[in-house]
C-alpha cells in the first residue's frame, strides 16, 4: 500500500535539502511531517483558504495542491524562512505591531502572500492588497488590521 518513494533535492529557506518522499505526497505534508516545518498550515486541502501558502521560485503557491516531488531543483521559502537571525521580517513585525494576529492560524499564509505582493507590486495600495489577499481566509480579524499592517510596510519602503 505504501506508494513509490523518490529522492528530491531542493533549496529550503536558503539551505540545500535532500529528502525521500512518496511520489503521491503533497508539499504541505512534506513540509509538516517530513521536515517538521509546522508553520505552514493545513486548513482546507484544496487551495481555497491560503493557510498553506509558501514561496516557490519567488511565486506564491498553495502547498497543499503541489506534489512534493515537484519541489525538486527549486527554491522553497516557508514562514520559518522569513526571519533573519533574531529579527522579525518587517511584515512579521508589522502584523505584531498592528494587532493583526488573533488565533494566528491563517497568519503564516497571509504573511507569505503579503511578502509576494510587497515584493512584486511597485504600486501596491490598500485596494490592491485587498485583491491580492482574496485567496487567504481569516476568521478572526475581519482583515482590517491585516491591511493596516501590510499598508504600513508598503508606506515605510517609500
Amino acid at each position, binding site marked *: 500500500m505504501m506508494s513509490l518513494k523518490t529522492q528530491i533535492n531542493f533549496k529550503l529557506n536558503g539551505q540545500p535539502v535532500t529528502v525521500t518522499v512518496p511520489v503521491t505526497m503533497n508539499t504541505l505534508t512534506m513540509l509538516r511531517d517530513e521536515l517538521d516545518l509546522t508553520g505552514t498550515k493545513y486548513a482546507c486541502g484544496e487551495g481555497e483558504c491560503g493557510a498553506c501558502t509558501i514561496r516557490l521560485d519567488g511565486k506564491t503557491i498553495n502547498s497543499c495542491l503541489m506534489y512534493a516531488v515537484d519541489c525538486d531543483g527549486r527554491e522553497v521559502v516557508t*514562514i520559518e524562512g522569513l526571519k533573519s537571525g533574531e529579527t*522579525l521580517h518587517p511584515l512579521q513585525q508589522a502584523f505584531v505591531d498592528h*494587532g493583526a494576529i488573533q488565533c494566528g492560524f491563517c497568519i503564516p499564509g497571509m504573511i507569505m502572500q503579503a511578502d509576494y505582493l510587497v515584493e512584486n507590486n511597485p504600486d501596491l495600495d490598500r485596494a490592491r492588497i485587498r485583491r491580492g489577499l482574496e*485567496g487567504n481566509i481569516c476568521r478572526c480579524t475581519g*482583515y482590517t488590521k491585516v491591511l493596516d499592517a501590510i499598508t504600513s510596510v508598503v508606506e515605510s519602503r517609500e
Partner: protein
Amino acid sequence: MNKKTIATHIEKTTLIGQRVRKPDAADKSTGKTRYINDLVLPQMLYGKILHAGRPHAQIVSIDTTAAEQLPGVHGVLTGKDVAGLKFGFVRDNVALKETVRCEHDEVAAVAAETEEIASQALGLIKVEYKDLPGVFSPEDGRREDAPLIRGDFPGNKSLHFAFEHGDLTAAEAESDIIVDNVFKVHHVTHCCMGTSCAIADFDNNGKLTIYSQTQYPYNYKMDLAPALGMHPGDIRVIQPPVGGAFGSKLDVYPYEPIAALLAKKTGRPVKVLYTREEEFKSAPTRQPAVIHMRTGCKKDGTLTFRSADVLLDNGAYTSWGPTIPVVMMRTVSGHYRVPVIAYNAQAIYTNNPYAGSFRGYGNVQTTFATAQQIDMLAEQLDMDPIEFRLMNAQKPGERTPQQAFLRECALDKCLTTAADATDFVTRQKEYGLLRNSDSRYKKGIGIASSIHNAGGAKIHKSDGCGTMLKVDDYARATLITGASEIGQGIDTVISLIVAEELGIPVEHVTLMNNDSDLAPWDVGVHASRTTFIAGEGARRAAVKARQQILNAASTFAEISADELDLRDGFVVRDKEGSIVIKLEKLLRQMHFQPEPELVMVTDYYEPNSEPEGADHISNMSAAYSHAVHIAEITVDTWTGEIKVDKITSAQDVGRVISRAGLEGQTEGGIAIGLGYALTEDMQLEDGMLKNPCFRDYKVITAPEMPELDLHFIEDGCAEGPYGAKGAAELPTIVIAPAIANAFYNATGVRILSTPLSPEKVVRALILAQQADVSSSDSMATAAVS
C-alpha cells in the same frame, strides 16, 4: 510602555486603553507556535472516524474484521463498545452510534500507525444500513405523522422555553400599529481555520490527559466523563493554542471521547484531526429557527408589546444550540422598553446537523427580527427613525420585564453617535426617494441595535473565575487563571491589567491558563464574559499583590503605603514620582529577611448576578450593553449582489482595556456577521450537506470587507474591571438586520430570511415588481419562502 524615566523620578501613566502587543503574536507570526493540530506525541496513533453519510438509518450489521487485520491498525471501535455511555446536554448522544440520526453520525473508529492506514482501514469496514424516513425541518418534525427520531422524545420535541409578562390581549387592544412577520434564519457554521482536533493519552494509573481545543475546561471534564464512564476528576485537560473557536468548542463532540476510547483500547496516545470536509459536516452550526414575531405600538410611538413564537431546528442531538432561547428571550423582552411580553420557543428534533453555541448565541437570530420590526414601526408611524428609537430606549437604572438591571445603559448615546456620524436621517430619506429610479444600482442605509449580557451570564450555579498570582524575586509576575485563550486576546487583557497594578512591563507578565490541573475554576469563554470576569479576577489578585508589596516597601522605607506607588519596576513616592527602591530588590529583601515572605496571592471572583432560573426572572448578568450598527450598501438590482460600503458601529464597552484587541474583536465580529447576512449558507438537502468546502461555502474575504468606522462609548461600569464591559459578541449580532433595513431603504422590499443572497435578492425584487408594489409585507413573505 509609554512611561518615561526622568533621572530619579517616574511619572504616573496608565496602560488601560492603550495598544499593547498580543503576547503570543511574535511566535504566531513566525510559524513557531505549536497549535494542537501540529502536536505529535511519542508513540502516537492516528484516529479516523467512519461517518454514516446518510441522515437516518438503522445499522443492521457491521463487520470490522478486515479493518482489524490490516497491518498498522491497533484498534477498532463501534457502537457496541460504548453502549450506555450517553453524554450531552440531555444525555441523548453517544460517541459511536447504533442508530444513525444525521449525516455525520459516527459509526466506527480506527486507530492506526498513520492517517493513511487509518483511512484505508475505514474503507474495509462493512456496514449494512436500513434507511429510515427522515425529518428535515422543524415544521415537518412536529406534524403528528412525522417519523419519530427518538423514542424517548415524543413528538420529536426537544427543549422548550417560555416567558410571559403583562396582559397581551389588553396590550394588543391598545396598540395602534402591529407588525406581524415570520422570519427565517438559516444554518451556518464556525469555520475555525484550525480543524477540530483532540489528542488523548492515558497514564498507567488510569488518568486521562486530553489535549483539547475546548474553551471551557472545567465543565468540559464534567461533560466528557459520562461519555467515557469516568470520574471528571480523573481527566486532565491541556489546551494548546487553537485555530479559532467562536463558541464551537463549548461542548463535547463525539470525536473527543472517540480519541480517548481509542487511546484506552490501544494503550497509546491517539490523535483525531478532522479534514475540512469533516469539519463542515460534523462541526456544530448556528441554530436555525423560524421566528413568528409581533410588535405593537401606539400612535405616539410608545411600544406596547412584543410576542415571539420560535420554532428551532434542534438537529439530531441536543448540544447548546437549543438553549439559545434563553438569550433570545432577553432580547425580545429587553431590546427597547417593551412592557408586555409573550415568548414561546420549542426545539424540534430533525435529521439535520445539530447546533452548538456560536458567537452571538441566539441573539444574532432574534435581532434579525426585532431590529427589522422596530424599523417597520418607525416607517409606519412616519416618525423620525432616531427619535422613535430614542423615546423607547431604556435608560440607566431601568429593569427589563425579566429583571435585567440596566445599571448603566448607553443605548441613547450609541444611537445618536452612530446616527450623527453617518447623517443617518437625511440620507435615509434621500435614498428612500431614489428607490423607484431606473438606476441599476441603488443605495441604502439601515440601522439596527441590540442588547447583550456584558457582565457574564449566570447560567450555571457559578459564573466565577479563580485566579492565582505570584511575583518572583526578579519582579516577574505569573498569573494562573481558568480563563482560556482562543485567539480573542484575554492574554493581552490580563497581562495589561497585572502590569498596570504592579507597575511592571507587560512583557514581564506570564499567563498560565492551559492546564486544568494547574488553573483554578472558570466557567469558560462564552457570553462575552472573559474580560469582565477573568479580567476583574486578575485585577483583584493584582491589587492584593500590590498591597502586599507596598506594605513591605512602607516598612522598608518608613513611608506610609498610601504615599507609595509602583511604576516601571520601581517603588516610588506617589506624588513626586521619586524612586524609593527598585521593585526586584525589594522583592528579594522580602524573601531573604528573617521572617521571609513571598508574593503569592489568590482570588475568587463571583460576579454580582443571579442564576438564570427556570422562571427566567433574574438579573443574570452583572452588566448589559448595547450596540448600534449603521450599514451603507449598494444593491445591484440586476445581479442581486449587495455590496456593503461602510459599517458604522457605536457600542457601549464601558471602558476600553486593550484597544487593539477590542478593535480586532469588533472587526472580526463584523466579518462573521457579514457572512451570516450575505454569503454563508450550509446547503442541506434531506439532511445532507451539499457544500462542505470553502469553494462553495463563502466566508467573507478581504475584498468584501467594508470600510469600518468604530465608536466605543466609554461610560464606565460599576462592576467591570476599570469600568469595562464584555464586548465580543455584539458586533456579530447587529449587522444582518442593519443590512436588511438598508436593503429595504434602497429598494422598498423586505427580506425576512437570512442570508440576503444574490439569488434571493433578485427573486424578491422580481416578485415585488410583478405585484407592482414597491413595499408590501405579503410580497416580502413570498420572497422568504
